[in-house]
Every structure is written in structure tokens, then in C-alpha cells.
């Protein structure tokens, strides 16, 4: 088993230590001031936990949820009701079940229960919401926030209604806030670097490519949404045990905007960003609040009382951040990923792992077959009754002029488009309506005409997530990825960002990613586009090796005749949605109909010259 992780141990350590140090420093600063200052800092640390909750979902999925503070609210209310002395609970919330009403739990227990309850709520709410489209999630989570507010503000007998709750024991001090914040940092980082975290990030980078490697969009989002709910619940619980009072508006629109601003300004993609953003925005917020009461700036001029200045300032900061600094102060990177740190710690080449991509027995293998596939859209017949057969271990070239239907056929084979007629069969199972991720998990991999890189991930992460997508655990995935990178000659680039790779490498990365899913059938869409002669020869050699070592069948869409002739034992020609001829490369190349399809009649004579 290959012990090397996706990042060097030193980089991982730095990524963890820096945010923790920042938390500790914040606590130290807080302890050194007045009691009022200490309380403010404590609250900032509670805020941080909520922001980290936001980061877990928003940062990793790339989808904005406006409802997370609903979970902070639920956590706060649960924790409050569990700790308010029984006499007071009876007064404020007469219809609360006696079990809860009488409870006077320790801060720790109430916080844990609050976290669990919020997590459960997130799971229940997220189940339907994560099924909605990417654009609808911000709206439906916003609706959840308002619904939560509505319920909390109107269910007087249980929640105290719009007057809220008082007499909450003030048990959160600076130390406990700092400790919980540290735990939250660890949780957020651990999730980000877990297989589930990687799969979710893949959906953020490129949804289509993520589906092609077996990732289930809804599932991964729900996992992150739930963890986010837990963290927000804990943050809310701790906050309310600091201030001692709670009302429905505490965790509503203003707080949503504030925490979102903190995340965006710091950089949503990294835990470091969440920490830095929270501290930066909180500082500015406090400064502006001071000005609200009127202050003199550098002794030069005075500002009178301006309530709401802080809120305006916050809005302006958010606006400027979106326009000028969309990736935030941290540029979306963790502490250990800063170029200088990375360069000092070169990646050591992996030792080839014997446990290369092997597929569990009993998986649908055998030949891939398309029967009489027809597909039309917008009145155009793109495919008309096309058959295709890909036996195990074979390399089939698919050629034809632009618009012939080659990519569409591959889309049908890989589940991205449903045919109007015909079927797709894998082994002896009909798979026509299977989703791309299901097909990937059954051993069908593909690449795309555009490389679709996971630009925000490193090269090795991009490939490892391919293995994780089909359910392979993180450790093994790393080994497989290192192996595949070695084979493709990309090992030296392992730690570099995938988005910055030159075009030839990005195409290879697409292939590597598909290979990491341990495919039995690999569909390649114009892998040689943009490659020069030498790169093309290397690609041909790599692909030949793949067929030989992995026992994988390959379908190759190409316009580059040289590559097709080099690699394929059979070639199928499509024109205008129909198969023109299927045969070995030499016959096909000289076939009059083929020459005509590409070039037109007057070149026919020369084909035979």
C-alpha cells in the first residue's frame, strides 16, 4: 500500500497548524482586553464556527446556500431550551414537553445535542432540497431560512415567539469557544480532504466530468449539507450561551449576510479563508460600530452618530470583494498550498503499486454494444439506426466529418443523452437509460472533446478523485492515481494545479482520470486534438499500453488519421448519422465513400494515385 498522501505531510501539517494558530492568537488577544472586549472576541469565535459550517458546504460544492443560519437558529434554540432553568422554561415556553422543559443540561451536553439535532434537521431539509437544480438551491434554502424564522417567531408556546428567550446560562467563555472553534477547523479540513470532500469538489469544478467518473451529485451535496448543519448548530448553541438571550432575528437575514461576507472575503474554498475572512470582517465591523457612535478619524474630522454604518460598510465590502477579489483574501488556498511552501517540498515519485486498478469480479464486462440507435433533436436527425460493437480488448476508431454524430453516439453510450430508439447493451445487461455515474461504476469511462479539467485541484487529486468516484477508498485511490500518473509521464506535475497544465497535459489528465476509474471500456473523444506530432506518438504508445495492461477496450473518436491508423484494429465511419463502412484501417482509408464524405468528389482520383 502506498503510504504517500495527496499532499506532502509537511504541507498538510502547515494547512492545519496555521488556522489553529490564528484561533489561538485571537483568543490570546481577547484575553488581554477588557471583559467587554473578551465577550466580543468570544462571540467572534462562535461566529467562526458558523462560517466554517458555511465553508464546508459552500466552499466544497460551489453552491450558495442562504439557509444555513436556520441551522444555527435550531441549534441555538435546542441548546437554550435544554439549559434554561426549569422554572424559567415553564414561564417562557409553556407548551414545551416536560422532558425538555425540565432539562438543565451541562453546556457540553447541550451543545452536542444541539449539533446533532441541527444535523438531523439538515439531513431532513437537505434531502428534498439537494434534489433541486443547482440554480434552485440558493432559492430553496433561502425559503427554508424564512420558513424557519416564521415558525420560530410564531410558535409562541414552544419557542417564546418573537420576544425570544432569556435567562440562558452564560456558560461560553473564551477558552471553550476557542476549543470548539479549533474542533470545527479540524472537522472542516478533515472533510475537505476526505474522499467525500474530494468528490464534492469535483462536482464544483466540473459537473459533467464528475458524473462521468461515477459521482452522485445529490448524495455528495447532502453529506456536506448535513455536516454544515451540525457545525452551524454548534456555533449557534455556543453563541447563545455567551449572550444569554435569543430571538428569531438573531440568526436571520443580517447574520446570514454577515457570515456570508466573512466567507466570501476570506475565500470560500479554503478553511484558511473562512478563518481569515471572519477575523478580517469582524475587525472592520467592530471598527465601523465604533464609528457609529460618532468618532474622530485621526483627529482630523468627526463623524456624527450614524447607525447602520457597519451594515452599509459590510455590504460595500461584499460588493467590492465580488467584483475585485472573487477568490477572497486566501485566493481559495490553504496555508500549506502557498507556492513557496509547495516548492520547498518536492513530491517524491510513487513506488508502483501492485494494487493497480482492478475491478471486482462479477461486474458487467464483456462487449459494449449499441443497437439501432436513433436520435433527433430540433428537427435534425443526428443518428439514424447506428449499430456499434466494441469487444473486450479491442481498439475501435470512430471517424467521420463534422456533424456526423460521433460525439452524440458516445454521449448515448455513456448515458449523457437518451436515444429516441435503439438500445445500449453492456455484456448481457441493457443499460440504455443508465445515468453516467452508474455506467462509470459499471466500468465505462470516457473523456470529452474539451478537457474539462478539475482546475482547482492538483494533478494527483484530479486523478485520485476518479478512483474515489467509483467508490474506491482514499488510500487506495492515491496509490492508483500515482500509478496512472507514472504511466502517463505526469508524476512530476503531481502537486501542481490541474488548471495550469499545458493543453497536452490536460488532455492526458482527462485520460488519466478516466483510467483511475478502472474502466473495462474507455471512450475517448478526440484525445489528440491540439497535440503535436511527438505528443501524438507518445499518446499512441500510452494507449497501446493501456489496452495491453488494463485489458481495456477503447473507442476512439478522432480526426487525426495517423493516430487512428496507428492504434485501431477496426475503424467505423459515420456520415450524416449513418454508418458508411466498418473495416480495418487500410480498407477504410482508401474507401471511395469515405474520401468523398470528407473531401468531396474531385479528390477521389487522387485517393487511388
Amino acid at each position, binding site marked *: 500500500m502506498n503510504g504517500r498522501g495527496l499532499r506532502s505531510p509537511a504541507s498538510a501539517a502547515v494547512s492545519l497548524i496555521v488556522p489553529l494558530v490564528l484561533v489561538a492568537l485571537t483568543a490570546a488577544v481577547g484575553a488581554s482586553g477588557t471583559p467587554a472586549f473578551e465577550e466580543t472576541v468570544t462571540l467572534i469565535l462562535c461566529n467562526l464556527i458558523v462560517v466554517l459550517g458555511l465553508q464546508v458546504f459552500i466552499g466544497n460544492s460551489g453552491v450558495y446556500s442562504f439557509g444555513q443560519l436556520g441551522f444555527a437558529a435550531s441549534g441555538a434554540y435546542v441548546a437554550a431550551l435544554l439549559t434554561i432553568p426549569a422554572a424559567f422554561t415553564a414561564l417562557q415556553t409553556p407548551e414545551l414537553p416536560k422532558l425538555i422543559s425540565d432539562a438543565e443540561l451541562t453546556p457540553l451536553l447541550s451543545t452536542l445535542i444541539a449539533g446533532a439535532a441541527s444535523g438531523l434537521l439538515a439531513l431532513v431539509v437537505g434531502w428534498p432540497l439537494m434534489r433541486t437544480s443547482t440554480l434552485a438551491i440558493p432559492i430553496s434554502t433561502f425559503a427554508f431560512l424564512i420558513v424557519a424564522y416564521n415558525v420560530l417567531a410564531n410558535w409562541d408556546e414552544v419557542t417564546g415567539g418573537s420576544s425570544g428567550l432569556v435567562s440562558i446560562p452564560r456558560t461560553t467563555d473564551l477558552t471553550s469557544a476557542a476549543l470548539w472553534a479549533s474542533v470545527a477547523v479540524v472537522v472542516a479540513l478533515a472533510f475537505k480532504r476526505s474522499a467525500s470532500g474530494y468528490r464534492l469538489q469535483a462536482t464544483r469544478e466540473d459537473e459533467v466530468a464528475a458524473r462521468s467518473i461515477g459521482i452522485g451529485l445529490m448524495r455528495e451535496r447532502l453529506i456536506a449539507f448535513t455536516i454544515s448543519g451540525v457545525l452551524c448548530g454548534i456555533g449557534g448553541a455556543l453563541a447563545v450561551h455567551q449572550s444569554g438571550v435569543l430571538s428569531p432575528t438573531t440568526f436571520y437575514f443580517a447574520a446570514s449576510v454577515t457570515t456570508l461576507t466573512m466567507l466570501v472575503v476570506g475565500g470560500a474554498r479554503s478553511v484558511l479563508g473562512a478563518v481569515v475572512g471572519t477575523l478580517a470582517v469582524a475587525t472592520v465591523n467592530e471598527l465601523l460600530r465604533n464609528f457609529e457612535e460618532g468618532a474622530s478619524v485621526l483627529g482630523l474630522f468627526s463623524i456624527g452618530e450614524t447607525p447602520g454604518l457597519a451594515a452599509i460598510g459590510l455590504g460595500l465590502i461584499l460588493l467590492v470583494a465580488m467584483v475585485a477579489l472573487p477568490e477572497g483574501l486566501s485566493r481559495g488556498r490553504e496555508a500549506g498550498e502557498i507556492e513557496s511552501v509547495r516548492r520547498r517540498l518536492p513530491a517524491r515519485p510513487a513506488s508502483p503499486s501492485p494494487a493497480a486498478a482492478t475491478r471486482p469480479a462479477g461486474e458487467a464486462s464483456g462487449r459494449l454494444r449499441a443497437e439501432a440507435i436513433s436520435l433527433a433533436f*430540433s*428537427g*435534425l436527425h443526428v443518428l439514424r439506426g447506428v449499430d456499434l460493437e466494441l469487444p473486450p480488448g479491442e481498439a475501435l476508431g470512430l471517424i467521420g*466529418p*463534422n*456533424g456526423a454524430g460521433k460525439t452524440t453516439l458516445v454521449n448515448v453510450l455513456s448515458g449523457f443523452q437518451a436515444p429516441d430508439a435503439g438500445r445500449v447493451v453492456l455484456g448481457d445487461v441493457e443499460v440504455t437509460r443508465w445515468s453516467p455515474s452508474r455506467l462509470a461504476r459499471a466500468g465505462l469511462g470516457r473523456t470529452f472533446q*474539451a*478537457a474539462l479539467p478539475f482546475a482547482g485541484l492538483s494533478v494527483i487529486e484530479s486523478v485520485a478523485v476518479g478512483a474515489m468516484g467509483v467508490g474506491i477508498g482514499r488510500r487506495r485511490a492515491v496509490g492508483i492515481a500515482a500509478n496512472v500518473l507514472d504511466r502517463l509521464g505526469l508524476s512530476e506535475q503531481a502537486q501542481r494545479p490541474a*488548471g*495550469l*497544465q*499545458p*493543453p497536452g497535459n*490536460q488532455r492526458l489528465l482527462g485520460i488519466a482520470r478516466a483510467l483511475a476509474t478502472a474502466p473495462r471500456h474507455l471512450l475517448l473523444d*478526440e484525445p489528440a*486534438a*491540439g497535440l*503535436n506530432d511527438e505528443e501524438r506518438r507518445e499518446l499512441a504508445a500510452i494507449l497501446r499500453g493501456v489496452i495491453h495492461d488494463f485489458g481495456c477496450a477503447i473507442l476512439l473518436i478522432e*480526426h*487525426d*488519421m*495517423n493516430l*487512428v*491508423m496507428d492504434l485501431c484494429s477496426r475503424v467505423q465511419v459515420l456520415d*450524416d448519422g449513418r454508418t458508411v463502412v466498418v473495416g480495418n484501417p*487500410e480498407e477504410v*482509408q482508401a474507401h471511395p465513400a469515405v*474520401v468523398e464524405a*470528407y*473531401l*468531396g*468528389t*474531385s*479528390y477521389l482520383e*487522387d*485517393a487511388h494515385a
Partner: protein
Amino acid sequence: MLELRGLTVGYGGVEVLHGVEMSVEEGAVVGIVGPNGAGKSSLLRAICGLTRSSAGEISFEGRSLRGLAPEEIARLGIALVPEGRQIFGTLTVAENLRLAAQGNGSGAMDQILERLPVLRERAEQRADRLSGGEQQQLAVARALLRKPRLLILDEPSLGLAPKTIDVVYGLLEELREEGVTMLLVEQNAARTIDFCRRSLVLAGGRVRASGRREELQRNPEVLRAYMGRQL
């Protein structure tokens, strides 16, 4: 009229055009052929302002086109008939045309409808009900209504039946005789080279061959660009 010097276009880290040089004189009909992925569409998109070029110069009637918005380039007199036609399906045929006519007077529209009677028949129908060939005629009519100085056509024969292609090319022939300056991009090399007085062969983002009709029709470079080394 149109001059390209050292045009280089790349996106997402991939370079699709490397130092392309080309010129189109007034009244000329120039063809661009080459296999898919050669960069033909990228070339047109760069000219029309849809894609930024990373290096090189594009000038039209002496004026640089770099950095101009697509609508500004269109107003300078360049009209594109794009790949896949891209007519507005939810608008009627007449509305598609009216959009292009832009107050050039209904006279121009009447003329076009005279010329293409099938469009006049279907004037009030939604454009997405037209057949492929009819849509292509609509797309060309739309471009013509702008009274363009330069007409650019991106794969006009794509997805059309041979007979329909003949009809479309019949229209293009008339335009050629009228002296409309045209830039024609096609994958079908023979037809294009035959139609245009001058053509370029683009492959791998570079110009591999260029010349007059007769020169190219027997040039092995063309075959090689498409069919690989075997030939």
C-alpha cells in the same frame, strides 16, 4: 478589406490558432477548409469579436477590430451566418428578418422575400418550424439584410441534404456574381475550393496551404491535412 496578421487565439490553456495570416480583398470570395479541430470556427469567432485573440492583428477596412464588442463589429459591416444557423426559433420568420433589417426600410425586406419565396410563404410562422434548408436560407437572408460589407459563412452545408445544399449554394453563387465579398468556411473541401476563387487550408491551427482554385485542386497537401500520412 480584411487583414489578419499573426493571429493567435488560445483559451483555457489550449492554443487553437498559431500566427494565422490572411487577407480578403473587396469583392473576393475566399474559402477556408480543413479538418475539424483545425481552428476554423475559432478564426471566425475571433474576427466577429466573440473570442479574444491573444496576439496578432485583425483589421477591417483599415480599422483594428481588437477589443471591439460583437455588436460594434457587426455595425461596421461584418455579417456572420454562424454554424448551425442559430436562428431565433421562438420568433417568427418575419421577426427574425426585421431584427436584422434595423430600419433599413421595408424595401430591403421585400426584396429578400422576393428572392427567397419560401420565406415569404412562411413569414408568420415560428422559425423553429422550418426545415434545415429553410433555416439556412433564413440565416443567409438575415445576414444579407444587414447590407454587409463582408459576409462570413460558417459551414453552411452542415446537416443539410445534398439537394438542399445545391439550393443554398445557388443563392451563394448569385451573391458571388453580384460581387458580395465573402469568406466561406467548410469542411467539404472539394465544393469549397471549387466555389471560391481562392482558398486556405487550415489544420492544427496553422495555414498549411493557400492558393487559387486550380492550384489547390491538385495539391497533395490538402489530402494530407485531412486523411493523414497514408496518402
